[in-house]
């Protein structure tokens, strides 16, 4: 990883953290509603995965703000979406859980746990069919690894040797349920073993995640078939803003926070890339500015017109055809 990239990753992580903190603040202020799932603690994972999987398509879940931004979607359009505004990336119709941007090959934002995985399989089939060799990455949580959609996808992707990276973000919890209470083992990669190569990485270490995803993408691009990569992470906040998170002990949370991916990356910048504290600070300030601008933009952005309610439901032609 060169210095520029390391900086970029660090910058995106900070941007992600600050974005999430702003989202939290504006949720509490009532500017954002619905379910808001913060990615705080997992920025290293989210950012590094997006940076490493350079080209190709990405499918993910409702916990996707940081990924969306790191994928290149304008933070203003993301924040405006959280605010439900017409300038949002989904014109205020999707909200926090449903950020979509095909121009960035980002089909994120499925709120049915595991539901995006078969979609990613189909997309991988399509891309291979069309001779597009970049591959597809699907991100999902540990909670998704017990549902039929996930299992069917392992089987199908493996049968067809599809260029698909299964990237499991294992933060140990599905809302309040510890994965080990509802699965026979702790690491879910085991479920993929009959079907494909599996790998594990420390999801709190952005550099490691970057390398692992890069390696996996090369494998799938080389026609190796699907790969399963599990990243052990942890989230600092409750599942969503409506979850107080009482099921985790203070100690558990402390251990988790001690691995903070941003601090870790900061150390890397210092020690490996010899950035000064001032240089790092400049990056932070730049990120803060972007977040502040995003909030300002979102605040000022217009509400969707009421006519928006009825657009893009049916085909454009239908109404005429019938009448």
């Amino acid at each position, binding site marked *: 990883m060169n210095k520029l990239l390391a900086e970029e990753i660090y910058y995106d992580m900070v941007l992600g953290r600050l974005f999430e903190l702003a989202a939290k603040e504006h949720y509490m202020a009532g500017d954002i509603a*619905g379910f808001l799932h913060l990615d705080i603690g997992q920025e290293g994972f989210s950012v590094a995965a997006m940076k490493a999987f350079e080209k190709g398509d990405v499918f993910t879940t409702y916990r996707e703000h940081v990924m969306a931004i790191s994928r290149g979607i304008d933070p203003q359009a993301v924040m405006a979406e959280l605010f439900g505004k017409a300038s949002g990336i989904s014109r*205020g*119709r999707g909200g926090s859980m449903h950020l979509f941007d095909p121009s960035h090959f980002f089909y994120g934002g499925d709120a049915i746990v595991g539901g995006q995985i078969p979609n990613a399989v189909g997309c991988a089939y399509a891309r291979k069919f069309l001779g597009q060799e970049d591959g597809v990455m699907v991100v999902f949580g540990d909670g*998704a690894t017990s*549902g039929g959609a996930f299992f069917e996808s392992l089987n199908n992707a493996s049968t067809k040797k599809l260029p698909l990276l299964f990237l499991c973000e294992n933060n140990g919890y599905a809302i309040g*349920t510890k994965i080990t*209470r509802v699965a026979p083992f702790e690491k879910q990669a085991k479920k993929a073993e009959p079907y494909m190569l599996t790998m594990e990485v420390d999801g709190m270490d952005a550099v490691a995640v970057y390398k692992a995803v890069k390696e996996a993408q090369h494998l799938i691009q080389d026609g190796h078939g699907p790969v399963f990569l599990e990243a052990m992470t942890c989230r600092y906040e409750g599942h969503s803003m409506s979850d107080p998170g009482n099921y985790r002990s203070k100690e558990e949370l402390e251990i988790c926070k001690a691995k903070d991916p941003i601090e870790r990356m900061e150390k890397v910048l210092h020690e490996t890339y010899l950035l000064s504290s001032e240089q790092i600070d400049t990056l932070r300030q730049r990120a803060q500015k972007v977040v502040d601008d995003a909030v300002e933009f979102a605040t000022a952005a217009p509400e969707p017109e009421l006519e*928006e309610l009825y657009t893009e439901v049916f085909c454009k032609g239908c109404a005429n055809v019938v009448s």
Partner: protein
Amino acid sequence: MLYREALNKAIDEAMAVDETVVVLGEDVGLYGGSYRVTEGLIARYGEKRLIDTPIAELSIVGNAVGMAMGGLRPVAEIMTANFALLAFDQIINHMAKYRYMSAGKITLPMVVRFPQGVSRQLAAQHSESYEQMLSAVPGLIVFAAGDVNYAYHALKYAILSDDPIVFIEHELLYNKKGEVDLNAEFDPFKARIVKEGKDVTIVSYLKMVDDVMAAVPEIEKQLGKSCEVIDLCSLNPIDFKTLESSLKKTGSIVVVEEDHKMGSYGAQIISWAAEEMFYSLDAAPLRISGADVPIPYNRRLELASIPTPDSITEQIVSWAGNNGI
């Protein structure tokens, strides 16, 4: 008592009287349920009876069916209606049919419960209503709890009954307050006359009952007529007797429902009225429903996609005008 407390009490009491009652679902145990309906029960009944499941709705219902075959009385919770779609095969092909297909040899004393409807900006994948689909499945009983008293009595009945029952709750009702009348005889299949009246029959269920009641004073004021408001309670079977008496009295019927209009549950009620009560109708029936769109996130759009007290008032008043009421 709150609606969610009434549900909790119903489950608690059923578990106390019958040791074979078990509850399963995502976060129902340690977490106490995402709407706190099963709070505290794991402490009382243990992990074997409050079963935290992984996120696998097909299995939640499929396992419940098997538990019922194997001698238990499972109460399966699906976290939100939309996820119930993943279990539709088990609900419709299995839960609803085993008794009939086996000529009554298999009985399935089980309940599947879930909250549905438009809450607050949860967007398209978390805001749906499935009474339309599930009430149309022969073999299933479908209850919809619109108030605290019904929530308690009907859920307790459902758990202790030998029938496969779908029990629908509404996302926005969990913190609703109300009384539970423990002395009254209770019939979960009977519609509830929420308010008597003589000029217009308004039929509704779940949260829309509250919205109708919020609209009624203004409607009555503007029209100078009185409304009878009925909470259907049991969506299948339907208490047509109660509807019939009301309709005979008022000569008109309005259905208010939250779900999309096209092919809605309310169409069944209007269709029945037109088919069976045609000559008692003095006016065209009216159906007030949600818009035929997936539910948008933005609050203005969201509110525009469902009936509200204001839009109910407006539509009923304008309908009354057009129909000489």
